[in-house]
């Protein structure tokens, strides 16, 4: 059975390891600021946690912010955790890419860029993946009306 990490413990470890980082531990996920996300991920992937497997990377559009959700796994320890970050600037959302940490993020980040309009900085080839160049709007945002 995959064990889910204790987020309070994780928060304590993270604040000790990366001083000056603002982090929130909720009951079912860890919430970090978008500008810290790269550092946090780098810590998570290294020992002792070894979250080496990025299971799922997705986003959700809420009225005030766009939430980016990481579902992480450790194949070695058979542990799992959820990491979230919130982008409050909805007109021009931006965050650091994690492709250099997990290659599996490449296509999922392109997907989020295509369907939510979130720009991932330092991505190896950020461009539209499912829709064509010139398509207007971001379909998975709540203000996008479906249909013709």
């Amino acid at each position, binding site marked *: 059975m995959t064990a889910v990490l204790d987020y309070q413990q994780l928060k304590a470890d993270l604040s000790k390891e990366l001083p000056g980082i603002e982090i929130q531990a909720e009951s079912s996920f860890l919430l970090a600021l978008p500008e810290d996300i790269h550092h946090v991920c780098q810590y998570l992937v290294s020992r002792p946690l070894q979250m080496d497997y990025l299971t799922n990377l997705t986003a959700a559009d809420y009225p005030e912010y766009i939430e980016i959700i990481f579902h992480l796994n450790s194949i070695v320890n058979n542990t799992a955790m959820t990491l979230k970050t919130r982008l409050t600037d909805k007109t021009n959302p931006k965050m650091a890419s994690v492709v250099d940490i997990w290659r*599996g993020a490449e296509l999922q980040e392109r997907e989020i860029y295509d369907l939510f309009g979130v720009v991932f900085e330092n991505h190896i080839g950020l461009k539209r993946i499912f829709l064509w160049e010139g398509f207007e709007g971001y379909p998975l945002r709540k203000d996008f009306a479906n249909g013709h």
Partner: protein
Amino acid sequence: MAIKTESFILNIGPQHPSTHGVFRLRLILDGEVITDLEPVFGYLHRGIEKLAEGRTYLQDIPFTDRLDYLGSMTNNHAYVMAVEKLAGITVPERAEYIRVILDELQRIASHLAGLGFFLNDLGALQTPLLYMFREREKIVELFDMCSGQRLNYNYYRFGGFVQDLPEEFLPALKKLLDTLPGFIDEYEQLISTNEIVLIRTKGVGVLKRELAINSSAAGPVLRASGVNWDIRRNDPYSIYDRFEFDIPTAQNGDTYDRYMVRIREMRQSVRILRQAVKDLPEGEIMGKAPKLLKPPAGEVYSRIEGPKGELGFYLVSDGTDKPYRWRVRPPCLLNLSALKDMVVGWKVADLMAIFGSIDIVMGEVDR
């Protein structure tokens, strides 16, 4: 020795016999050698995630059928399980057993089709494909009995199934289970030791263990690279912890290994099926679930081991009858993350073999 050459762009797809649907690869070729490649997705992007947000939870089940259309039963299972987790619905014992039976049958059917296409890509003039479709047809017939459909079954419901198995299902399944290992032996005899298959697949398109994990590969692709990771074992769902089965792995991560892992997985599925059929209890098929489901606000990520790999559903509920966010973790898309590293340096013919051995379904890649 270095040869000075000039390269050219070759478009494979979007409509090509061996891209398994509408997929496009822009190859930069140097003669026959692939020096660079850029996959182009989206030719089957139907906006399922957006459409699903506009319908009720129950109405979204048909969308899951059409994601990985070679594994509709497992897709149903993954989605239904996620909603059950979200709404706290319990599933009766009999329904759990039937779910395992259908999942494993679907795994065999999906692998049969996938291997058939793979061998077709190697250039074997449809013969192995048609042999494998013969067996797949028998499994599809079983699904047809219980759901009334041949491809997109829409058979699972929250809390159980839409109806109980018909009477003739179990005898037919038992008969199939008696013959299936013989057929798998036949394929092994015809294909696994064929000299040309061996030289075309051994050592071709190696995916190293580290890269496989790092690029979020899943399922047979991950296991062929030597990672012993199977959701059925590592994070058991449904009643998979009650069965005895092995997780087949291989060490080299080449095309041949991915093929062999699938063949062995089919044997293990037969093993699980035998146990499940033996233990199948009588009883209710449907748990207590409201007609119009309104799960409490919250979110859930639930996953199963589908035929192509880890199939997950991330659902966000805002307390209404429609999901707020509906997301699939597509194993087929993520298995393609490392395609470039596997293919560069090989020839056009190898690309087809490697691509076929990853076994993708475009419905799930593009959604």
